[in-house]
């Protein structure tokens, strides 16, 4: 019972925080720091509550008598909760300066971020398609508004409109899929759907169609080719903190429900999708890297590269379908790895752009190592991790995914993935080269050291630790710890993994 209480605390803390922020927003005028800290306070409470229930072995519905089988609590969902909340805290704290230097931010910004987080947490816990849809829409609606937050900036507004239009199509597809599944199975509850699909005798055709539409919605959210086109424009148009939030936190949110569906409910249908997923994984990796190599703006480059990362995850999804034992943990590990590295990379970018108005390009980083030597080193660490350089967490993530692919016989995809990883070295290392091998043109600025810097250093430490052996520092999860976490999360899904 007490573990349910923790969950309720964590969920209500976020929702309550959001509501309180709405009330506070016009009371103080421009005191964004204060609002920021209040939201972080609520998030920290939520994070602690989420961590408290981790590894208690909880598996069950929240208040089944009252709510029915709608909200489910297990380690899988809790892992996502933790990542969402951490990502949000990072987004808020790293960007303190950014907010302070922009006039267009106000209290609702924090409320919307918290609402979005609420939606994502609900999504991770939802065990029912309608709830999942509504949760997804809560998260998405908030993000739409956040993307267009700079409403005097036409690029921002245009990005929001694009995202809104295309995102609605994605949402509709999710709903459509749910409806068809409901029509076929007579329930929207994941447990009942799983029972139906595993029955053996049932005709799965309508379920497959419905599930495919849901999967298309998922593909849209993670930006798989050909549903990728929004990614670059939206990432570019959004204010930097929002881009950071989207790329790191919101992007992995959809996996919370997608993996649950895919690993548990849709197991008998895996065979149907194999070729489709193979094709899409290949296209996504190629397309993403094509987009990334030609960009000059760092935001767009990272957007393109995030498409490539989706491609890697699609490889793992394909491998799950082919019965790979480690693919499920591999994808979770990859999610963690990608999450940490991209929070860091985007974090530094927005930290830097806090004081400058222009768009950050490769050229802006020339001689960065002389201006901010430590920040430059951190950036290099994140770039190395994103590129999958050994001794970083990104390397292990890729390593597990490729191992899973080879284990399931997907040699072509594994080969292509490795090739794409090599290509990614080009656009990531270009930045490192800019940082270190070009003379400094701008004058030396005063080095500031504040909580943002500290968090970025912490992230870099996690990135490096996560790529190395284990337990170098007690109580700090490193590679082994993360693998254990991923395995525990997958184990909680209760699938016949082995």
């Amino acid at each position, binding site marked *: 019972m007490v573990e349910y209480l923790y969950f309720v605390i964590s969920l209500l803390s976020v929702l309550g925080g959001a509501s309180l922020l709405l009330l506070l927003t016009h009371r103080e005028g421009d005191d964004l720091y204060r609002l920021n800290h209040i939201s972080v306070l609520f998030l920290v409470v939520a994070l602690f509550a989420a961590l408290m229930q981790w590894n208690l072995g909880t598996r069950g519905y929240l208040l089944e008598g009252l709510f029915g089988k709608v909200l489910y609590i297990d380690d899988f969902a809790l892992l996502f909760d933790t990542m969402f909340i951490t990502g949000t805290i990072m987004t808020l704290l790293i960007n303190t300066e950014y907010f302070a230097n922009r006039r267009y931010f106000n209290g609702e910004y924090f409320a919307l971020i918290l609402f979005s987080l609420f939606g994502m947490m609900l999504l991770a816990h939802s065990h029912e398609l309608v709830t999942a849809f509504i949760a997804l829409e809560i998260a998405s609606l908030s993000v739409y508004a956040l993307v267009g937050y700079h409403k005097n900036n036409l690029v921002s507004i245009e990005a929001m409109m694009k995202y809104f239009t295309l995102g609605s199509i994605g949402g509709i597809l999710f709903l459509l899929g749910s409806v068809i599944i409901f029509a076929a199975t007579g329930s929207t509850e994941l447990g009942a759907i799983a029972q139906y699909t595993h029955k053996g005798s049932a005709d799965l055709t309508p379920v497959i169609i419905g599930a495919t539409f849901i999967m298309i919605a998922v593909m849209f959210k993670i930006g798989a080719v050909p549903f*990728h086109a929004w990614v670059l*424009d939206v990432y570019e148009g959004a204010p930097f903190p929002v881009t950071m939030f989207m790329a790191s936190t919101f992007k992995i949110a959809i996996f919370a429900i997608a993996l649950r569906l895919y690993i548990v409910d849709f197991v008998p249908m895996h065979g149907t999708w194999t070729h489709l997923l193979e094709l899409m994984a290949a296209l996504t990796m190629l397309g993403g890297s*094509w987009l990334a190599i030609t960009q000059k703006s760092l935001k767009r480059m990272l957007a393109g590269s995030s498409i490539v990362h989706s491609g890697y995850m699609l490889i793992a999804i394909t491998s799950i379908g082919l019965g790979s034992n480690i693919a499920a943990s591999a994808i979770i590990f990859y999610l963690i790895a990608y999450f940490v590295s991209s929070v860091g990379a985007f974090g530094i970018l927005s930290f830097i752009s806090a004081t400058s108005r222009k768009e950050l390009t490769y050229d802006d980083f020339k001689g960065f190592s002389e201006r901010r030597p430590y920040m430059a080193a951190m950036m290099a660490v994140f770039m190395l991790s994103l590129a999958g350089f050994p001794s970083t967490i990104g390397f292990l993530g890729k390593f597990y995914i490729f191992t899973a692919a080879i284990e399931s016989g997907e040699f072509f995809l594994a080969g292509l993935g490795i090739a794409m990883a090599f290509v990614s070295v080009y656009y990531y290392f270009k930045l490192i080269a800019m940082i270190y091998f070009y003379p400094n043109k701008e004058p030396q600025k005063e080095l500031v050291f504040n909580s943002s810097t500290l968090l970025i250093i912490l992230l870099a430490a996690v990135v490096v630790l996560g790529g190395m052996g284990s337990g170098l520092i007690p109580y700090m999860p490193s590679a*082994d710890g993360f693998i254990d976490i991923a395995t525990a999360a997958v184990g909680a899904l209760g699938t016949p993994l082995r």
Partner: protein
Amino acid sequence: MLLDLILLAPFAAALVGGLLYLYDPQARREKIYSIIALTPVLLGAVLSLVIGWSFIFGETTHIESTLFEWLHVGDLRIALTLSVDRLSMVMLFFVTFVGALIHIYSAGYMSGDSGYGKFFAYLNLFMASMLLLILADNPVIMFIGWELVGLCSYLLIGFYYREEAAIPAANKAFIVNRIGDFVFIMGVALLFVTVGVNGFGFTAIEASITKIDTAMLSLIGLLLFVGAMGKSAQIPLYVWLPDAMAGPTPVSALIHAATMVTAGVYMVARFDFLYSRIPGVGEFIAVIGIASALLAAVIASYQSDIKKILAYSTVSQLGYMFAAVGVGAYSAGLFHVFTHAFFKALLFLGAGAIIIALSHEQNIFRMGGLRKDSRLLYYTMLIATFSIAGIPPFAGFFSKDAILVSLLSTGHYTLWSLATFGVFLTSYYMFRLFFAVFHARSYGFRVLKPLPLTMTVPLVVLAVGTATLGLLGVGGTFGNFLGLADIHAEADHTIEYLLAIFNLFVVAAGAGLAYRLFAQEAEPPNEESRVRRLLVHKFYIDEIYGYVFVKPLYFIASFTGNLIDHKVLGRMILLGVEGYRRAGEGFGKLQNGRVRFYTLYMLVGISYISYYLLSILGGI
């Protein structure tokens, strides 16, 4: 708990000191730095005394403390466990004690240097790493310490990075050590493959050592020894040690004389259960040891740089230690490690004091007549020289005598006679140094810089230690305390005494020769004859290595670099890159910024998927 503190305190101090230095490298904070650096080291010395007390006077034979599990991959479970038994207790004692003295000395020696904070951060890191090496409960953690001390050695050799010689010397030390380390880790890996499943601590390995057949065991033993060759500067990997003298003198004393270089001997003694099963490999080790001892002694006799002479003498003394552990006399070897740490540290610190006093003069033939200038240096150096040459009752006499006795009593007569010749050479080159520095005609008028108290006190303490600690070995007390798997071949006591007296004559002969040649008029060695030129140039070993290893590597590298890589592969890759970039630009054109096109792409995708579904489900 004590152990954790001993290990973690210097690590923490290194971290704090390092961060403080990085925060503002220009700031002058010598007091703070030295407090930060000295506290954990002194604490370590006190704590190791406490541990030593409980070992000697109490019942304790083993202390263990697990910090956390460091690695867990498949069968490989490596916990960061620290353990002290009698062997490591001895190492622990002299490393912390000598280390503490050298830290104090350094506080005076480095005073005024701009890298003061950096130096002490490195030095603390070294102490921590060395302790990790000693206290490690399994070969993997030991290897971590092994690598870390190598790293610190590299950093400290290159400490005066503005000087021309420092960087190549640091690189040389690091690379040569890496060769050894690489082979060492291969040995550890082999050991794990053969017995690792039942736990990989030293005791677990000892318990399951019988499962390995002799051939494999010999291979492992050899591989591990190659690692020791690198770290402890034995033929053929000794070349880095003389160059390592480019570092600050306290570093030479601590790392390149007293502690790190003896790690190889310690490792062999730690694996005594392994080496006592493979006497063939042991003999090989002994041969290498004696060969190193003689070669280094011969070279030392023709050098004129005070630190180089001491470096070669270190190689030579390490050779004796390996000879002892090679023939199975582990406690004799360890005893020499112990005494050597004191007298060699004393010699180096004395040399450092001389160098400082003479404003960085290192050539012994330009010193001369120092006896009148500094009584303190004269007597401490005299004690050290007596000790290393092997004159009773100073420490070196007992340990060296024990080695010679063990060589003789195990029946290695050739090795023994060579070793005895080595004793003669040692006595010769050490007294040559001593007479040239203190007795020979003064090289003109000079004013000695006064030495601070922080430098003189460690000298005196070490001198007292050097003078007295040898008595620990009387009657085999030291060996009995260690309780290692010695190969016992008791010699007749009469022979032992006769041998001791004989050795004294040998030492006296060497000293006498040195007195005749150098006590009045010290002349630097000339390069007239071919043989002498060979000797002055250290047998041209460095040049030979250069021709045999370095030059061909350069050639291969430049060949592949300029021709294959650049002309062949480079062109091919450029072609591919260009094509890929074109593809990217083409694909980027699709990204035209219009929502309806984006919707079109989505619809194309959805339509294709629908078609795909239909083809699978509907059989179209």
